[in-house]
């Protein structure tokens, strides 16, 4: 049983082993299909486990302790795996979308000299992410948390021969570590407070003690949330995600849109019992999420890189999820996570398909939307996929994004006016940038030769697009308003009042979204506008993501460089080198004093030997 539950993690590890050992022999096709097969196997096992949980009348969790790990006094941690309604949904997302993206990558990475390495990393990511979501305690969750961070770093810097990509990987790593410090402190605080790290025991204690824990819960949740801001790219730590687009596009789709970046939301949902004890933290979470949503959404409005638009959009949508968690609407948050995983992965893969189709001219940047236009006729499948993903993102009914976004807006509407205003504005902005991107990329006339000669991608790439498009269209059915399937599914964990559809609100936002799409269409009927409006003023401000990176450069990086310079040139050269050289100098001077004794004349040495002989003999004869 343990082995069966652990096998979703073990399959990708097996894939890594085989690909590392015999990947060279298998060749490109073999490597790609092997890596994809193991993930499909993981998906199959996940499905079986899901069925097992679903088949149980109580939705009882499958819980196994695979191996003991740390046993030190009160600290008892084992490699425990937990498959409950929450983690089984996450497992299906990770392995399902993961499998599709593996298959897509076979086409996308075709011809890359490091094909094998790419799939090893990708398998490693799947194993790590499954460790994260299947963990039954905070420490194993943290192991997965760090491993996915490592994979993210490795894959962002996959084409590390370009300095820009390596720097982006490093930035992601460093920024994530800042959040991780908070997360680690939060885990320590949990251990100090509860004496255990097991989810079961911690949440049992939370249920038993309730309000008595308010102060501790406040501290713990704030620290955990810092961790979430790093991994899920929220203000103030979201700056790494747009740069992470330096990685291959399938990576952006899998890691930086569908799965890894949702780890923070998953973690907060997992620990929702703690968050519910800390209303102050909840307020902060909701506001940070909403603010992130708006800041990133507006930034997406003025991006020129096809992937950066989607990156800021991802940050923005993550803000939605975080805000929902802050509002206590965890089901809505998970629901949006699910639908977003579908339509954002779809958008990224479609964007990858566009880049793939564009990338034939060395001198034209295949990611710059100014170079595109008119691709709808040349890449019909990709266009259809992009439209579906975009409309789902914009929240146009009956696509999946409409339902999940509406649920979050409704929760905000009933709880917090300020959050509602921010999220509502973001919803409109979302439709605007979706419209802008659709027009710039697919409509109008080709603006470069690359765009004119673009062609549809191979079936291995378009098939996953179609599969994801189906998910993006039908995903909403998983949680129809008024207590849908997901709501009931998560009920054993999250008891939440289901809300019926608020028709005026939904209609209002649908109308606004459609209107915004139309406005975008009208604004960009002349595509040259896109290039013009980012040149200065508000456009430039938004294109540079509210200049938050610039602010960090001024506030953090510059002083850091200054301190480093002082350390290097004053402390190191003066003090450390001075001490070392000083010691050497002392000995050199001392040596100068005595080196005269070493004349090199053997007869001198003989003289001293004889002196010693005389003295020793005299000592024995005269003194003794």
């Amino acid at each position, binding site marked *: 049983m343990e082995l069966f539950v652990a096998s979703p993690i073990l399959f990708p590890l097996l894939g890594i082993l085989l690909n590392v050992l015999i990947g060279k022999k298998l060749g490109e096709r073999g490597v790609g299909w092997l890596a994809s097969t193991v993930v499909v196997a993981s998906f199959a096992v996940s499905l079986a486990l899901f069925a097992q949980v679903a088949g149980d009348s109580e939705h009882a969790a499958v819980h196994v302790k695979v191996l003991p790990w740390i046993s030190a006094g009160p600290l008892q941690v084992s490699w425990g795996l937990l498959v409950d309604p929450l983690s089984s949904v996450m497992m299906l997302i990770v392995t399902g979308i993961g499998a599709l993206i593996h298959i897509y990558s076979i086409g996308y990475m075709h011809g890359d000299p490091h094909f094998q390495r790419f799939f090893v990393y990708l398998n490693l990511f799947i194993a790590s992410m499954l460790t994260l979501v299947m963990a039954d305690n905070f420490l194993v969750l943290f192991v997965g948390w760090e491993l996915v961070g490592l994979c993210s770093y490795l894959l962002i810097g996959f084409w590390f021969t370009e300095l820009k990509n390596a720097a982006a990987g490093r930035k992601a790593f460093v920024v994530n570590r800042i959040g991780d410090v908070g997360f680690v402190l939060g885990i320590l605080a949990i251990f100090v407070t509860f004496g255990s790290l097991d989810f079961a025991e911690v949440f049992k204690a939370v249920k038993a003690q309730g309000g008595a824990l308010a102060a501790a819960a406040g501290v713990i949740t704030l620290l955990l949330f810092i961790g979430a801001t790093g991994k899920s790219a929220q203000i103030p730590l979201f700056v790494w995600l747009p740069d992470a687009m330096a990685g291959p596009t399938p990576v952006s789709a899998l890691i930086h849109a569908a799965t890894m970046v949702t780890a923070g939301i998953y973690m907060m949902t997992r620990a929702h019992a703690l968050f519910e004890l800390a209303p102050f933290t909840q307020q902060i979470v909701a506001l940070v999420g909403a603010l992130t949503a708006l800041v990133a959404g507006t930034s997406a409005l003025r991006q020129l890189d096809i992937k950066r638009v989607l990156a800021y959009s991802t940050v923005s949508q993550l803000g939605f999820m975080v805000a929902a968690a802050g509002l206590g609407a965890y089901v809505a948050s998970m629901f949006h996570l699910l639908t977003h995983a579908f339509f954002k992965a779809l958008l990224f893969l479609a964007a990858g398909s566009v880049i793939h189709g564009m990338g034939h001219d060395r001198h034209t940047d295949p990611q710059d939307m100014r170079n595109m236009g008119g691709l709808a006729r040349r890449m019909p499948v990709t266009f259809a996929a992009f439209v579906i993903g975009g409309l789902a993102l914009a929240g146009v009914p009956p696509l999946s994004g409409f339902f999940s976004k509406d649920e979050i807006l409704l929760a905000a509407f009933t709880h917090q006016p300020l959050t509602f205003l921010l999220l509502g504005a973001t919803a409109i902005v979302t439709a605007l940038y979706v419209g802008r991107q659709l027009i710039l990329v697919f409509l109008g006339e080709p603006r470069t030769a690359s765009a004119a000669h673009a062609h549809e991608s191979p079936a291995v790439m378009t098939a996953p697009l179609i599969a994801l498009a189906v998910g993006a269209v039908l995903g909403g059915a998983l949680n129809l308003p008024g207590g849908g399937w997901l709501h009931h599914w998560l009920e054993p964990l999250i008891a939440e009042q289901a809300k019926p559809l608020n028709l005026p609100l939904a209609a209002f936002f649908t109308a606004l979204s459609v209107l915004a799409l139309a406005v975008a269409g009208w604004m960009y009927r002349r595509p040259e506008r896109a290039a013009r409006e980012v040149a200065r003023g508000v456009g430039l401000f938004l294109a540079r993501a509210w200049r938050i990176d610039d602010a960090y450069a001024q506030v953090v990086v510059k002083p850091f460089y200054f301190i480093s310079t002082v350390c290097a040139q004053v402390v190191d050269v003066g003090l450390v080198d001075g001490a070392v050289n000083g010691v050497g100098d002392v000995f050199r001077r001392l040596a100068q004093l005595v080196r005269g004794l070493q004349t090199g004349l053997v007869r001198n040495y003989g*003289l001293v030997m004889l002196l010693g002989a*005389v003295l020793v003999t005299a000592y024995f004869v005269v003194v003794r």
Partner: protein
Amino acid sequence: MTMAEWALLVLLGALSLASALGLLLSRNAVYAALFLVLNFSVGAVIYLLFNAPFLAVTQVAVYAGAIMVLFVFVIMLLGAERLAPAENPPGLAYQRPLAIILAVALLAVAAWALLSGAQIEPSPSVAPRPDSSPQAMGMWLFGPYLLPLQVVALLLLAAMVGALVLSRKS
């Protein structure tokens, strides 16, 4: 010890010292080597007087014979028999007076030890005269001293190989 033996001993001592001084003072390496041969031979006679016939023979054969022949051979080979007096380098300016002072001091210490030590350990009136024929020495060497003998044999072999390696041209 008879008077004749005493007379012989004193004569031998004088000869020994004289030949040693000859070695120390001679300006020609060949003469120095011959003085040393004389010194070794005198030593061999003293060994005979002191009940060590085997060593006396070995002394003549190995030292006065083999070793000194080797010396003379090298002197001839290098053509280094003429020892021209030369200036001492600066580091050795006081070498001679210092060396003589130390030598006198060592000799004084030795004399002191003999004069004072004689009282501490009176000699037994009748010392046994063990059998020291070559045969008896052989029994000793291949009996209690077998291991040192083997080690020394190995050392000799190593020295032979070493000498060969060193004197080979480049």
